[in-house]
């Protein structure tokens, strides 16, 4: 059924359709609507779940772990500082192999405090052993949530998954969304029936044991293997989703990369802007292409390597930054390309932090710099787009 939904509502509908047993959530801008909608669904009988209005995000994830370990499907949502507060327990959820799904309204991290979009919050959690999906639209937000449940709960995977949607640009913007019927989702997901982790007086198992050096590394390797297997499981689930619901997803989506000298890489809502700008540039005869990452963890190494193979230059648009190094996607792409006999040059463009709009002009600027590099001109390795550098250098006291 087609509805006009804000991104947050789409996430809440996806959660409702998945029939979770327990939802433990704490409000934070811009994800507040999620617990609000869930408690509304529970209160009016639309959702038969236990809603726990916990007293912090750390407790939200902890309660979800307790519930998942007991054997029910769980889901929650947060953003930014809330996700940062969950940091400790995210590793634990993954280590305990509990397929919890977490919806994130991608928002900048303090300081200074900022409620608008960038990817720093989820990127900062890339080492936690969680699958990561990024949505370009509210339709993708809903669909990727359902897909996340299925991949996470697959017996070959059993890892938690997070789905990121940009703060305000998606969370609070209304878009038409095709909401699947409950029956269709029931057929797609089935019930969560864990064989490994469930607490029952009939079955005295111990979860969360103490791992000495003799065993710890093997457990970590187990998570590693599960992530590797997830690559195949994700493709299978994307296939099944397409058959059932008519929308085909892939780990990366490409546009014009076959003949492009310069390929831009994006994640999240800026992908739509980029596609428009690049379409115009191609009409103007510029050989530019686009790759949008939908799956970031596991890093779609094989697909990326294949997609950039004809390019001379890759410009990564990172809506995040690791101070002292550069953007995450840039760093990881450069690493996977490094040992290939032939590879494009990779440049980093830090863009759109703290909700700064990513405009078509910005995309054009990036592409033009890439084209210069493709001609052999030297451009900086790491670039900050649309930043008043002079003002900063004045306050930092940096001499030109």
């Amino acid at each position, binding site marked *: 059924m087609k509805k006009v939904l804000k991104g947050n509502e789409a996430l809440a509908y996806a959660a409702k359709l998945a029939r979770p047993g327990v939802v433990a959530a704490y409000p934070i801008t811009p994800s507040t609507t999620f617990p609000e909608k869930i408690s509304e669904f529970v209160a009016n009988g639309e959702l038969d779940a236990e809603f726990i209005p916990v007293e912090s995000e750390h407790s939200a994830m902890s309660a979800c772990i307790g519930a998942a370990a007991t054997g029910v499907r769980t889901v929650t949502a947060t953003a930014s500082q809330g996700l940062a507060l969950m940091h400790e327990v995210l590793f634990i959820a993954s*280590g*305990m*192999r*509990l397929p919890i799904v977490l919806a994130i309204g991608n928002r900048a991290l303090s300081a200074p405090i900022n409620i608008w979009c960038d990817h720093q919050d989820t990127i900062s959690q890339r080492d936690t052993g969680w699958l990561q999906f990024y949505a370009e639209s509210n339709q993708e937000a809903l669909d990727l949530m359902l897909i996340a449940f299925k991949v996470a709960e697959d017996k070959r995977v*059993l890892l938690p998954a997070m789905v990121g949607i940009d703060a305000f640009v998606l969370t609070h913007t209304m878009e038409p969304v095709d909401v699947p019927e409950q029956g269709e989702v029931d057929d797609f997901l089935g019930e969560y029936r864990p064989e*490994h*982790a469930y607490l029952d007086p009939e079955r*005295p*198992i*111990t*979860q*969360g*044991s103490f*791992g000495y050096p*003799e*065993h710890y590394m*093997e*457990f970590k390797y*187990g998570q590693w293997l599960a992530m590797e297997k997830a690559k195949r499981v994700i493709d299978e689930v994307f296939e099944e989703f397409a058959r059932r619901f008519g929308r085909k997803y892939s780990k990366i989506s490409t546009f014009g990369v076959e003949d492009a000298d310069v390929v831009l890489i994006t994640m999240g809502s800026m992908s739509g802007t980029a596609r428009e700008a690049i379409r115009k540039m191609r009409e103007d005869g510029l050989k530019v292409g686009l790759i949008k990452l939908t799956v970031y963890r596991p890093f779609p190494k094989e697909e990326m390597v294949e997609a950039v193979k004809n390019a001379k230059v890759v410009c990564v648009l990172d809506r995040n930054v690791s101070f002292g190094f550069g953007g995450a996607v840039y760093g990881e792409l450069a690493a996977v390309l490094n040992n290939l006999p032939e590879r494009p040059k990779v440049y980093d463009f830090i863009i759109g932090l703290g909700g700064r709009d990513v405009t078509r002009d910005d995309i054009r600027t990036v592409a033009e710099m890439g084209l210069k590099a493709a001609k052999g001109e030297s451009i900086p390795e790491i670039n900050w787009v649309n930043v008043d550098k002079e003002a900063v250098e004045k306050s930092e006291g940096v001499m030109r």
Partner: protein
Amino acid sequence: MKEITKGAIIYEPQNTYTYLTGGWRTFRPVINYEKCIRCYICWTYCPEPAIFKRKPAGEPVPNERVAEKDVVYIDYDHCKGCGICVAECPVKAIEFVKEEK
């Protein structure tokens, strides 16, 4: 090959008994059944537990009234020699003996 489970879950309950903590002792408690009134206070407080009950099998008794009651025995594979049983026995029926080499 090591035994590895997903999530480090342990499926067999109470299997720590395979680890013999009896080696921790420097003193060992020895029960004198002639004095033991079968009050089970030692059994109540032994932390391990290293004191168990079983049906009597001809052990000496202090009086006829307790002849049919379960006797306590010490599991020396696990007794850590804390001495709580020695200290708490109301009739001082447990001796604390230095371990031989």
